[in-house]
């Protein structure tokens, strides 16, 4: 079955960023997103997801490269200085290109 190349942008960050990230993803042209609750640690310490202020999310956005770059630049510029944020991209193949 034929697949079509897209970028998957993965943003791991504080749960407080969920609403702004969803708004940003939509405004930069992403068609959809998936979010799940996660826990982990990094240079700002451990985030164990035990209570409200300690929660982290992982957001996956599958989109074309231009949208992924714009969104990533915005996240780095707006949030990375003050919030715990980890971001990476991956090449993925999708079956229905019109969805992404």
């Amino acid at each position, binding site marked *: 079955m034929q697949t079509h190349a897209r970028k998957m942008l993965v943003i791991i960050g*504080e749960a*407080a960023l969920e*609403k702004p990230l969803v708004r940003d993803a939509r405004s930069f042209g992403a068609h959809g997103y998936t979010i799940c*609750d996660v826990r982990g640690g990094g240079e700002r*310490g451990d985030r*164990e*997801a*035990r*209570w*409200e*202020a*300690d929660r982290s999310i992982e957001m996956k956005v599958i989109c074309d490269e231009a949208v992924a770059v714009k969104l990533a630049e915005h996240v780095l510029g707006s*949030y990375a*200085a*003050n*919030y715990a944020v980890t971001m990476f991209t991956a090449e993925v193949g999708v079956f229905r290109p019109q969805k992404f």
Partner: protein
Amino acid sequence: MDPVVLFFLLGLVARIARSDLRLPEAMYDALAIYLLLAIGLKGGVQLAQQPLATVLPQALAAIALGAAIPLLLFPLLRARLPRPDAASIAAHYGSVSVVTFAVATSFLAARKIDAESHMPLMVALMEAPGIVVGIVLARAGGGQRIAWGPLAHEVLFGKSVLLLLGGLVIGALVGPEGSRPIAPLFTDLFKGVLALFLLEMGLVAGGRVGDLRRAGPFLLAFGVGAPLALGVLGALVGQAIGLSLGGTTLLATLAASASYIAAPTAMRIAVPEANPALSIGVALGITFPFNIFVGIPLYLQYARWLGGS
């Protein structure tokens, strides 16, 4: 000693001893929702029978107290900390801790000391003013604009204010008779649920020990000194507005407590440059355990010294 305090201690010990004990996240959420609703409902059932002329001046005084606390603390904190951190910590103390309030009500009930039944209204009213003042203090120096819209939404429709006020309204609407069918869940089980929640709070507070090491002696002293002084202020206000011995103790507890549900979330959004490890470390790592173990019995003494009856 109150069993709920011992549950807190158990959680604290478990965490410091690096036990693998971990309550499911969904359980923490469910217990928090239950406690907020139960406190609101209990107050609401009684609130309907209170004359507005009594409640209104007390409610206004509680709001003013919540707003005044960050203004008092900010200059002290600003002497040692950057503006965002000073303002954020001040906001945490201006807002209130619902769980500390719940432990104080349980402490009074065990000693058969009555308090005004509409005190949960004070909790709901004191959640937001301190946060708003803290945000204004953080932004007063710089030119950054405050996005009040999303912030108001976060504070007013955040789970703590929504459930407390929702419970109050439902309780007031249905009254003592109407609330009887749900009383086995929301009244009889209250103390057991509070004990479970405090076990989890002990686990959470024990995890902040690392923050405390980084916070330094100033914040350690602040975490104990602030509730001691704010408890006096709360007790004085309680006396001035004519609260009973129990009511004065509860208002002193509210004044001395620091928020860790509403304030951290709101401040993270409104003042992202403030370091949350400092404010949460001092509020949850020092002041919360201090209030549970030492503060609440002391605030009862404050109320007694001031001649509450």
